[in-house]
């Protein structure tokens, strides 16, 4: 009961009229920044960080929570409406969210995203409040070998399950892995695949790849097809609100997404991308098994699951952040910087030494997600009205904002050049039926896979057995073997039926 009374005290500190106002301001500002492609919740917090320093720590945390949830929602909004995720963790949302928007179901996609985020955040924060000491113990168990196994699992899941054609899926993954290799190798300082171009030494940024493949690729793809019907017509937004059927289709993905997301926030494995893609893959194969899969044409499950997973992961990523001082996502990294500004030193002692702040922060997470729900659920149809803009203006706007987001991130023209080149790659992939998701997963997790593989091998002095040295990694590989066997059997059976 001790935890409970501490949390109540936290609410007491957080729930003042002024703090509620800050939370509201944070949600609005966060949503606005999050809506710009390339500028996700991490960017939103970074941009608004200077403003929050005017406040006292509690007020600042509450505004942070608001900005964070707003940014998260803003990123999902553009993923659904414009096929342009504001950040990499909303990529999986775009795959089904955008087809939903094209099928006049944009408000439903937005609503299921908001509600899913709310459910997941509340559940995950509650878990953080009550179980963070135990979660920390799990996090410490993960070493390089386990991270490598995790990355391989994500590779298999996205290239095998998400895409129907395994060969094309793996090829897309390979292209992503190759893109991630460009630049200076972190461990030895070796320059790889830069071909003498200094701008490439720092590697290809994930923002550039994400925005290029999805937004620029989409615009080129639309241009290439524009002969078959004028692209100037508007997309009709359709009827707002979730029907009872939508709700009954959404709640299970919310629960599964949350369950997938919670453990991934605790282990420092590169943020919310893996669970969002795993959730997407899980929902897709479950839908396929049920037989009436709408995936590819706008399945509400494909929005509900990943969004829940994304928010659950980010909420539980507070566990390593607060208790170990270990940021597991870009957002967490910026928050760590903010903590340091206030003289707060995250670590095992934080919960005892500065308990009042920690509990106020946790309470403000509850408040932030509630305010987001109140503010954005009614506004989902309003946001969906973005689609009433004539399509030639809409796509022109997408390209302008994509360019802007990438250019301003580092004020670098060469990033814009790269953006357009990656856009052409995205167009070619789309044109010839290659899935985009494995490319992104390869770019994001490729470095993690390589680094952890090399660290594990160095620790094992070259012994391959070190990769299978713990129950966690053996468990992960066992899951993969089972998944591959089940999939192969399923395909063979289908082929036999077809023959």
């Amino acid at each position: 009961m001790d935890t409970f009374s501490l949390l109540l005290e936290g609410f007491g500190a957080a729930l003042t009229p002024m703090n509620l106002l800050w939370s509201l301001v944070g949600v609005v500002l966060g949503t606005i920044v999050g809506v710009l492609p390339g500028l996700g919740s991490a960017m939103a917090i970074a941009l608004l960080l200077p403003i929050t320093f005017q406040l006292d720590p509690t007020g600042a945390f509450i505004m942070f929570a608001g900005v964070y949830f707003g940014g998260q929602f803003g990123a999902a909004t553009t993923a659904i409406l414009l096929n342009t995720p504001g950040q990499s963790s909303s990529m999986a949302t775009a795959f089904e969210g955008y087809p939903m928007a094209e099928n006049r179901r944009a408000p439903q996609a937005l609503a299921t995203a908001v509600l899913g985020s709310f459910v997941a955040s509340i559940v995950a924060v509650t878990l953080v409040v009550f179980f963070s000491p135990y979660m920390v113990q799990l996090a410490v168990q993960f070493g390089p070998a386990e991270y490598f196994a995790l990355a391989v699992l994500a590779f298999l899941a996205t290239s095998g399950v998400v895409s129907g054609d395994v060969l094309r899926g793996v090829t897309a993954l390979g292209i992503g892995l190759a893109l991630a290799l460009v630049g200076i190798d972190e461990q030895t300082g070796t320059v790889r695949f830069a071909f003498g171009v200094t701008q490439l030494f720092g590697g290809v940024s994930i923002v550039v790849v994400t925005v290029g493949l999805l937004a620029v690729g989409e615009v080129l793809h639309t241009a290439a097809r524009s002969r078959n019907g004028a692209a100037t017509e508007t997309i009709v937004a359709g009827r707002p609100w979730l029907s009872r059927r939508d709700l009954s289709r959404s709640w299970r993905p919310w629960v599964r997404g949350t369950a997938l997301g919670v453990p991934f926030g605790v282990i420092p494995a590169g943020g919310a991308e893996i669970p969002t893609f795993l959730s997407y893959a899980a929902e897709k194969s479950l839908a396929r098994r049920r037989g009436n899969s709408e995936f590819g044409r706008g399945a509400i499950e494909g929005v509900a699951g990943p969004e829940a997973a994304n928010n659950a992961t980010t909420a539980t990523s507070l566990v390593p952040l607060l208790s170990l001082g270990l940021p597991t996502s870009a957002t967490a990294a910026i928050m760590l910087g903010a903590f340091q500004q206030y003289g707060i030193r995250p670590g095992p002692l934080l919960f005892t030494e500065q308990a009042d702040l920690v509990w106020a922060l946790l309470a403000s997470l509850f408040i932030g997600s509630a305010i987001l729900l109140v503010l954005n659920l009614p506004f989902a149809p309003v946001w969906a009205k973005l689609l009433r803009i004539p399509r030639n203006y809409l796509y022109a706007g997408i390209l302008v904002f994509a360019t802007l987001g990438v250019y301003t991130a580092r004020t670098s023209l060469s990033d814009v050049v790269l953006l357009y080149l990656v856009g052409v790659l995205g167009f070619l992939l789309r044109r010839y039926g290659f899935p985009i998701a494995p490319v992104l997963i390869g770019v994001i997790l490729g470095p993690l896979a390589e680094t952890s593989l090399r660290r594990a091998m160095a620790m094992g002095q070259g012994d391959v057995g070190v990769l299978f040295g713990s129950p966690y990694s053996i468990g992960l590989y066992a899951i993969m073997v089972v998944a591959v066997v089940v999939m192969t059997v399923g395909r063979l059976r289908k082929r036999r039926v077809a023959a």
Partner: protein
Amino acid sequence: MTTSPERVRTGRAETTPGGRVERGDLLVAALVAVTGTLMLLATVRMDVSSSVSYLGPRFFPGLVAVLLMALGAALVVQVLLRARSTARDTEQTTGEGSDRRALGIVLATLTAHLLLLETAGWIIAGALLFWGVSYALGGRKVLRDLGVSFLVSATVQLAFSAGLGLTLPPGVLVGVV
């Protein structure tokens, strides 16, 4: 991609996608294999300082390179096999014939934008970007479109420099902005 218009009109496009798409598929498959080969060459010629770790900076690139080469070869085989059997699932690969003119205009717009962004400044380059894409996608009310384009790029400039404090290149309008 190289396409021959005659092929599209032969009517074969209805039953099978015709030779056109398969040639593009073949080209993409070859491109994958060539990328892998180039990567392998670059990996072999990579400047590596003498390091003691068990897997050096060459291991992973080599692995990916070989993977891409194998995948490229497999894709070529797949294309050839599919060309033989007529019944194939071409839902994704059969483009409805691409509009090369619109695509060309967009690509030209992107190039122009890159050239103008840091010389003429954001307002002009951004407006051109907006207008070019809108035109390529069928926007034919030239004057209204131009007005909207400048409105968008100017609003963005204002919002970013005044609101968020991010810098955009002022270019030739440096005194005005």
